[in-house]
């Protein structure tokens, strides 16, 4: 279990040398000491090109081109072994990347099952019920590659939820969704996260995930 994620003087390599200029100088994240606690809801609002997807990838261990440190309960994540990362990605950290990374050649339900089978968190009917809440249960057997971007976002969201987690990192989860679908997604995420006392970290360039009681950080 992870209680706290600390971003300690974090700076993408690409911003090195530009510490005193925007967006770094105006950022609430870069070159700061930031603590993200379990159970909180954080909205990271930013303009394009400020590094929000980078931040999500850094925390999830998908990229390491940064300076400074990221600590999980005081442990520098650069020291984590592949086995530990696997364990964290199954039980502590959920991630919805901006580009979604669905497998286009697999069906919607297979894309979700491929994640769910690692922990058997939910039964298939429960997963289909989540799809139904997001109004895409009729697409369960369709190939993911045949869906619209908005539909893919909802599939990727259900996949991200199909595991136990302490933190769920959602990188622009509703950028292609209308307000009604946005609300449905936000309700589902908050319900699942609250049930396990998990934190939600969502990024956005404009269309914010409609979280209640969230803290907003400007990147």
């Amino acid at each position: 279990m992870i209680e706290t994620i600390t971003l300690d003087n974090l700076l993408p390599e690409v911003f090195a040398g530009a510490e005193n200029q925007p967006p770094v100088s105006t950022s609430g994240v870069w070159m700061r000491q930031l603590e993200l606690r379990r159970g909180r809801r954080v909205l990271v609002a930013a303009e394009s090109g400020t590094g929000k997807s980078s931040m999500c990838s850094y925390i999830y261990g998908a990229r390491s081109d940064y300076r400074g440190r990221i600590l999980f309960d005081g442990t520098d994540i650069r020291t984590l072994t592949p086995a530990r990362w696997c364990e964290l990605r199954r039980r502590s950290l959920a991630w919805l990347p901006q580009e979604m990374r669905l497998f286009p050649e697999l069906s919607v339900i297979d894309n979700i099952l491929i994640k769910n089978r690692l922990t058997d968190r939910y039964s298939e009917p429960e997963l289909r019920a989540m799809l139904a809440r997001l109004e895409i249960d009729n697409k369960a057997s369709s190939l993911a590659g045949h869906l619209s971007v908005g539909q893919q976002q909802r599939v990727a969201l259900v996949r991200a939820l199909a595991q136990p987690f302490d933190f769920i990192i959602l990188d622009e989860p509703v950028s292609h969704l209308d307000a009604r679908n946005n609300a449905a997604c936000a309700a589902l995420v908050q319900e699942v996260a609250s049930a396990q006392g998990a934190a939600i970290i969502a990024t956005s360039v404009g269309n914010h995930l409609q979280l209640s009681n969230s803290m907003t950080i400007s990147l």
Partner: protein
Amino acid sequence: MSNKPKSPVGRLLRRNISAAQLAAYALANFAGLAIVLCAMQFYRDVNSAFDSASDSFINRDFLVISPEISSLGTLTGGQAAFTPEAVADLESQPWARRVGAFTNAGFRVSASVDFGARGMQTFLFFESIPDEFFDVRPPGWSFDPKKGEIPIIVSKDYLALYNFGFASTRGLPQLSENVINKVPLRITLAGNGRIETFSGRIAGFSSRFNTIAVPQRFMDWANSRFGENDTPSYPSRLILEVDNPGSPEVTGYLASHGYEVAGDKTDSSRASYFLSVVSGIIIAVGGVITLLAFVILLLSLSLLLQKNRRKLTDLMLLGYSPAQAARGYLSIIMWINAAVLACVLATVTLASSWWENRLESASVGVAPLWPTLLCGFIALAAITLLGYIRIRHTLRRYFRP
């Protein structure tokens, strides 16, 4: 219902697999291993045939040599023998493991045998070689002066000569080896002013060892008791233990020094040497084909992993370990290799039974098949393991952010 793999991971990773590449690997691996294992089994079978066809108590790596007897020597009465320098030179050859000297009897020997009312007496000669040159000693291959019984090993040729050349024309009974073993002999030794009679028995027969041999212990004792002054001090025959009797180094050395090899030892050894060279070449060719097949497998795997790199990385980002992601590909290699193994083992078994039937009909033993089959299993297990290690290594590389 479709018959797709049950796991979505399997369905995902089986894409981009080139059936043609894997078939090429399987075919090449099958051909290479079948060649290697057939050549191995054939070599072992024929070697075993050489062994079983050669002398029962003397190893086929032994050569009995004597100096060539020249016409001049015959006229002058000079003894053809090995000088200590010649023996030392032989011992210094890299291919010579051991050199032993035949000891001649320095006394006169005669033997007599009774067939009912008819008797037969003949002059004989004895030779001995050091006991350690015998692979298997016949029971009672020793001599105790108190008991006074002399065990003798006789060339099979002598028995054949007696049975078919002598007994049949003189109306004497023909004798089998078993009967001869039970016939009591009276051996009379004379020399050094003494004449004494001992009992003797034929302890065994040799088909390659062309002499009448007695234990070294007896010879030493008898030479000291009956030996006369003109006992030859240099041996006229030597027994050599060599690495490979048919190798060019050995035959070349013996020819250049004018040494003659007794029996057909070098012929079979030459055949054996030729066989080992040919088998070696065939095994090497098969080995190269197997190696190339392995390279094909590694290249196919690298290509497959490269094509599926994004999917593999995504799987590991979902929480799959490199080992779990590798498992799908391991099962493919295992199934292919299991099929190759089954085909190779069947081929080797069928092929070897074909030639083994022919060898066995010639009453020669063949080598057991299982060590060869085990080698095939080990080779494919090693290929599977190396392939798996390669996949794991690549996936671990993909894992690192």
